[in-house]
């Protein structure tokens, strides 16, 4: 007997409404909020409320992406809109309790904006803030808004309606057809069409079939996966259950780096609540479909985010990639058909089921449908996580959203795609960011890291940073990656120390191209990209280092001595 979703939804709405009868204070409590000092702010709020003798509901929420404004505090009085305040210190928290909780002054001078509505008392909507203007928040739809520890808040916003729809109104092939129609491509970096992957796995011989969720979130600088797991674990789980239904999996593993304890805790709690409500486990929502999902902790190594390595870790082995074929959808975990999806990929799925593949395909560009979450970091005024339709230009991201370089500095380069991506100069800022455009100029979108570098940055040193990373993270199984990365790193180190030699540039180009052809996995094949892209776009900096023993940015060791 199908469970009545409407009844579940109404109960959840009623419980959330009840909370809304009180004064509510929301504190951004993702890992990033905590890092920015949200703990003492929370404590100050508790103390001040207690001293004042007012009862208010203090709620911890995830991260809305506005990292440069953390710690973030929102206040919602009954019948009034929710107002957001940034860079809150314990002192400022006390002030807000005095002025707006006890008094009636929402302090428009301190407010960032009104969350999810029109302006109020002279405070503009947050959606008009330059950081949020134009954002299309699909993946981040609940981030920073809901309490990740309370499934009712997810359900009240329509959560699990899509799972109900998929189970009772669609066959598995229909779910796959809808996802194919949407044009959704994997958000873990490689951009493989999600529907196609599911179809291949569904059709593969062998059982059981496994679903793996990739929450390794390993790209340095690209921290959106961690933020998503901290902020909205239910959306990932709902997407996963729909995926499992479509493919025909009864068992799944949620792979999360052990270094992300908060994400593990929140996902664990979310799994438990989903199971209690019948969204997970045996006979989901009264259907004859069962799916079990379990966390597997990643013991920490960048390469374990790679698809075959994830499987080896779960099997209890060393996380070293293997040669493909066979592809995982044919022979993956314990040699069974296995689908691996990134957490962000899965969070798109409930929306596609709810509103249809055709709707989804209207967002983004011809070959890159939908939105992408970007981590905008480095030398910009506003750092954080933002979500835009694919095809937004680098210039829009850096200048309009990020506010451009810091005062007195100028833009030099943007590094995209994580440690296996490349650096692009100012002349390329009008390129659209999608799965394919940046590849043509020697970089890539990858997982969506956007690191802005200003005029004080040395491009040779930047390349050296990434090559040192690859030396550390190479699993050592194939010599192209193990030895190639080390050789490149040695040459780059020499150059930054003023000991570059004629011929170094050519040697690096030859070696880098070779690695791209013969390395075993994506790490080795792309490890030279930071060198090759900087050689392509910033060759004169290499030449100055090698021939004139001079670092134009004044950032290398030789310019210090």
């Amino acid at each position, binding site marked *: 007997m199908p469970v009545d979703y409407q009844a579940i939804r109404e109960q959840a709405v009623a419980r959330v409404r009840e909370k809304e009868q009180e004064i509510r204070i929301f504190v951004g409590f993702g890992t990033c909020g905590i*890092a920015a000092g949200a703990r003492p702010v929370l404590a100050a709020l508790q103390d001040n409320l207690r001293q004042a003798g007012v009862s208010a509901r203090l709620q911890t929420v995830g991260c809305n992406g506005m990292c440069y404004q953390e710690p973030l505090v929102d206040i919602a009085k009954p019948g009034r809109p929710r107002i957001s305040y940034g860079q809150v210190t314990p002192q400022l928290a006390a002030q807000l309790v005095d002025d707006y909780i006890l008094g009636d002054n929402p302090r428009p001078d301190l407010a960032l904006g009104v969350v999810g509505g029109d302006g109020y008392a002279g405070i503009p909507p947050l959606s008009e803030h330059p950081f949020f203007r134009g954002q299309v928040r699909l993946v981040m739809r609940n981030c920073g808004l809901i309490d990740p520890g309370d499934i009712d808040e997810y359900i009240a916003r329509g959560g699990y309606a899509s799972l109900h729809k998929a189970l009772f109104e669609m066959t598995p092939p229909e779910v796959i057809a809808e996802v194919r129609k949407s044009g959704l491509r994997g958000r873990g970096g490689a951009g493989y069409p999600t529907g196609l992957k599911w179809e291949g796995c569904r059709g593969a011989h062998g059982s059981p079939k496994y679903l793996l969720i990739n929450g390794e979130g390993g790209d340095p*600088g690209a*921290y959106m996966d961690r933020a998503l797991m901290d902020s909205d674990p239910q959306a990932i789980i709902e997407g996963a259950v729909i995926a499992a239904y479509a493919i025909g999996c009864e068992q799944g593993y949620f792979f999360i780096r052990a270094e*992300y304890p908060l994400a593990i805790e929140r996902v664990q709690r979310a799994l438990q609540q989903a199971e209690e409500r019948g969204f997970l486990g045996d006979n989901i929502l009264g259907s004859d479909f069962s799916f079990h999902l379990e966390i597997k902790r990643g013991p*920490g190594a960048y390469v374990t985010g790679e698809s075959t390595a994830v499987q080896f870790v779960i099997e*209890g082995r060393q996380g070293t990639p293997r040669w493909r074929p066979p592809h995982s959808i044919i022979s993956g975990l314990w040699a069974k058909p296995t689908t691996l999806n990134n957490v962000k990929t899965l969070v798109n799925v409930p929306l596609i089921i709810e509103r249809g593949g055709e709707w989804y395909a209207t967002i983004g560009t011809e070959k890159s449908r939908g939105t992408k979450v970007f*981590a905008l970091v480095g030398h910009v005024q506003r750092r954080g996580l933002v979500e835009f339709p694919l095809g937004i230009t680098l210039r829009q991201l850096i200048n309009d959203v990020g506010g451009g370089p810091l005062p007195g500095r100028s833009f030099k380069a943007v590094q995209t795609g994580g440690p296996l991506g490349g650096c692009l100069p100012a002349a390329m800022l009008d390129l659209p960011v999608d799965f394919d455009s940046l590849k043509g100029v020697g970089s890539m979108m990858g997982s969506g890291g956007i690191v802005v570098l200003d005029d004080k940055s040395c491009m040779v040193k930047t390349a050296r940073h990434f090559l040192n990373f690859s030396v550390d993270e190479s699993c050592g199984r194939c010599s192209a990656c193990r030895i190639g990365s080390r050789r490149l790193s040695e040459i780059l180190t020499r150059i930054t120390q003023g000991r570059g030699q004629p011929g170094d540039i050519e040697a690096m180009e030859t070696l880098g191209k070779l690695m791209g052809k013969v390395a075993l996995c994506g790490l080795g094949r792309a490890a030279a990209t930071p060198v090759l892209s900087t050689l392509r776009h910033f060759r004169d900096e290499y030449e100055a280092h090698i021939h004139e023993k001079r670092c134009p940015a004044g950032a290398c060791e030789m310019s210090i001595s």
Partner: protein
Amino acid sequence: MARQVDGPTLTLAEIISRYQGQKGALIPILLDVEEAYGYISADMAEQIAWTMRTSPAHVYAVASFYTRLRTQPRGTNLIRLCSGIACEVEDVTQIQRVIEEELGISVGETTPDDLFTLEMVPCIGVCGQSPAMEINDVPYGNLTPDKVRQILARYRQGET
């Protein structure tokens, strides 16, 4: 997190028995041992190997492959300073120097009083707050030399 100060909360046998009969149990066991004891000793590796019907060399190989797993004891407070790109461009090198000066150790070392171990790790996932570090899994962002000195002082006075 379990700390050595009060002694580990679980014995090795208890940890191993949690995963009895499960496939792929080696890594979860090693992670739990790491959490309870701060590292995986040669003795423990041998015991784990024996119960799991594998060789100590295999257990050791797996343990040494991963950054989260340690084969050497560490100090009471584990500092993990981020060396990722977002932190690198915000001059994490300067922060590294301050910590090394304050503690009198280099990256990879433990203070003689066993109070601190310093490690560099690539990205702790708070890149919007770079430069950043974690102490015993508690994240600290937007670090400046002064801020780091204050945080270290608090841990010296017994914060865990």
